[in-house]
């Protein structure tokens, strides 16, 4: 491991941890804001920086997150007198660290070919054809001969080739550790979360905590089975457990959600259950167990459990994006640029520089992750909580058989299609191009809808129900937050 590798690794860790922390912090705000929108109330709007006597900077309640952080750090750090001191202290660390460590294998973008990242200077003849590379003050052609007769020079951002990497000057993976055991590492780390929850409940010396920990452990081990088996179909199609290979397969063919639609929903359900959120939040059901296995925790130790939960949403969204939603890939954008092609009919082909494609890829990955995070927040505020026997029944008697059936179906359909020969293969190629087209249209539609929504004036509904809402409406809402009711 050279110094350069070490620096690159540290930068990647900084980016990944920074993204996780910031988005997890933002999600606590999004959760509250979304719940207030869904439940037709004002939501958080009190915390603010007083700029002058009358104007307070409130930023749509965004400062509540910062206020929370300060509060967590300055609250009393309580430990029950009869608690197991070592285990009680160890539990929050065990809950938080694996979620962060899990992100090590997730690819943030395409592999960087260091030779092609920077611009290069070409020398051209009068018609604009490249004659060779401009090195120092001489022009060298492919055979390293000096070319003297050139008309002009031009700077070019080189495009990578679609297949294979130019590794003459080395390559840089945009995941912290590009392990070939990718998914197995993720399962290993995800499994550690169970230990943190179980230890927290056991060491707290509290009945509610113990019951919460039991529920948490039992629920998480149950859904771990579905989580593991639902991905078998995806592994069969991609032929690898390395996350980079999975994303590359999806870029060459079509997104995983189209080849493994059932597995996507099974994995999504199991991932929500693993992060112990509504509708699977039995371990911390407020109406029954106060807050479950972390009832006795206070201050930042409670904050660590709370934060770990939100980071788990982000990491599970990242996994969903990587395995089922094409990772850093966007429809028709390949490593070498834009190729709009249906079957064998080429419509547009435009080469784009390697660096630009890398930036687009990284932005696409993080953008998709944010969309899935938002989807998880919507799920939380739209569904009621399960009963515990329903939860276990759903796992063992519905999701587990379905994930086994998915393996059967994937095997038979894939091998059946393979024995179909060339016409079937051409049909599949066309079908995958059409799915890419559908995705492109949906993505563009989403962007247009979001832009229109941002610039159109907010509608004020006239029906106001609650008395407090009526009073607020009479005043015209608060200073920075006009009534939405």
């Amino acid at each position, binding site marked *: *491991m050279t110094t350069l590798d070490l620096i690159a*690794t540290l930068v*990647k*860790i900084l980016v990944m*941890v920074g993204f996780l922390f910031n988005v997890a912090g933002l999600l606590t705000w999004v959760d509250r804001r979304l719940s207030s929108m869904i439940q037709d109330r004002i939501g958080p709007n009190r915390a603010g920086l007083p700029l002058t006597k009358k104007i307070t900077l409130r930023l749509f309640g965004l400062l509540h997150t910062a206020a929370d952080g300060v509060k*967590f*750090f*300055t*609250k*009393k*750090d*309580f430990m029950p*007198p009869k608690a197991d001191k070592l285990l009680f202290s160890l539990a929050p*660390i065990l809950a*938080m*660290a*694996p*979620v*962060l*460590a899990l992100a*090590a*294998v997730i690819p943030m973008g395409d592999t960087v070919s260091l030779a092609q990242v920077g611009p290069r200077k070409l020398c051209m003849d009068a018609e604009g054809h490249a004659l060779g590379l401009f090195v120092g003050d001489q022009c060298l052609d492919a055979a390293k001969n000096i070319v003297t007769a050139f008309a002009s020079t031009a700077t070019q951002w080189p495009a990578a080739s679609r297949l294979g990497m130019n590794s003459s000057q080395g390559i840089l993976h945009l995941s*912290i*550790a*590009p*392990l*070939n055991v990718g998914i197995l590492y993720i399962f290993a780390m995800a499994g550690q979360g169970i230990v943190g929850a179980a230890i927290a409940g056991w060491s707290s010396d*509290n*009945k*509610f905590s113990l*019951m919460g920990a*039991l529920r948490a*452990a*039992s629920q998480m*081990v*149950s859904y771990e089975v579905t989580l*593991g*088996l639902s991905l*078998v179909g995806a*592994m*069969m199609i991609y*032929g690898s*457990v390395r996350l980079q290979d999975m994303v590359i397969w999806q870029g060459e063919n079509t997104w995983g959600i189209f080849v493994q639609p059932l597995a996507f929903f099974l994995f999504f359900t199991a991932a929500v259950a693993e992060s112990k959120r509504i509708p699977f939040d039995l371990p911390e059901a407020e109406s029954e167990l106060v807050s479950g296995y972390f*009832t*006795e925790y206070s*201050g*930042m130790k409670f*904050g*660590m459990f709370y*934060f770990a939960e939100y980071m788990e949403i982000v990491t599970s969204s990242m996994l969903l994006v990587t395995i089922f939603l094409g990772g850093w890939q966007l429809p028709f954008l390949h490593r070498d640029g834009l190729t709009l092609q249906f079957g064998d009919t080429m419509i547009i082909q435009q080469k784009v520089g390697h660096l630009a494609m890398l930036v687009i890829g990284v932005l696409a990955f993080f953008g998709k992750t944010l969309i899935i995070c938002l989807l998880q927040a919507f799920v939380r505020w739209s569904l009621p909580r399960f009963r*515990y*026997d329903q939860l276990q*029944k759903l796992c*063992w*008697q519905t999701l*587990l058989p379905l994930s*086994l059936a998915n*393996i*059967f179906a994937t*095997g038979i359909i894939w091998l059946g299609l393979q024995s179909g020969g060339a016409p079937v293969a051409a049909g599949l190629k066309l079908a995958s191009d059409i799915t890419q087209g559908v995705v492109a249209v949906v993505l563009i539609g989403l962007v247009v809808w979001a832009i229109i929504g941002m610039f159109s004036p907010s509608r004020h509904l006239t029906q106001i129900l609650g008395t407090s809402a009526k009073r607020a409406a009479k005043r015209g809402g608060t200073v920075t937050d006009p009534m939405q009711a």
Partner: protein
Amino acid sequence: MISTYAPMFLMIFVALALAGVFFLGASFLGGKLKKTEEMMMPFECGSDSSGGNHLKLSVKFYLTAILFVVFDIEAVFIYPWATQFKNLGWNGLFSMFGFLAVVIVALVYCVKKGALEWEN
């Protein structure tokens, strides 16, 4: 070999260090604790706690844990086959169907025995 796994260990170390920073911050910055008798009681919504706090647990939880071990190990057996599925072809698929049939029989047995019933 080392260069492949070194970044992974570095990330695990960073994760533990960050968790440790949060943890230490909690104990250094937190306010002074005034120990009152009420505060030191196990939290139970205001009512006095009675009996020990380590309850007898329902056997269902143990049963679920054992079932998890059985089915998760089966999943681990399936992974190597899944990555080699395209090379193994129909032969490999039918061998795996045989293995999965055993898993399904085990699952059906568990359901029929009532191992997954939480109602009673």
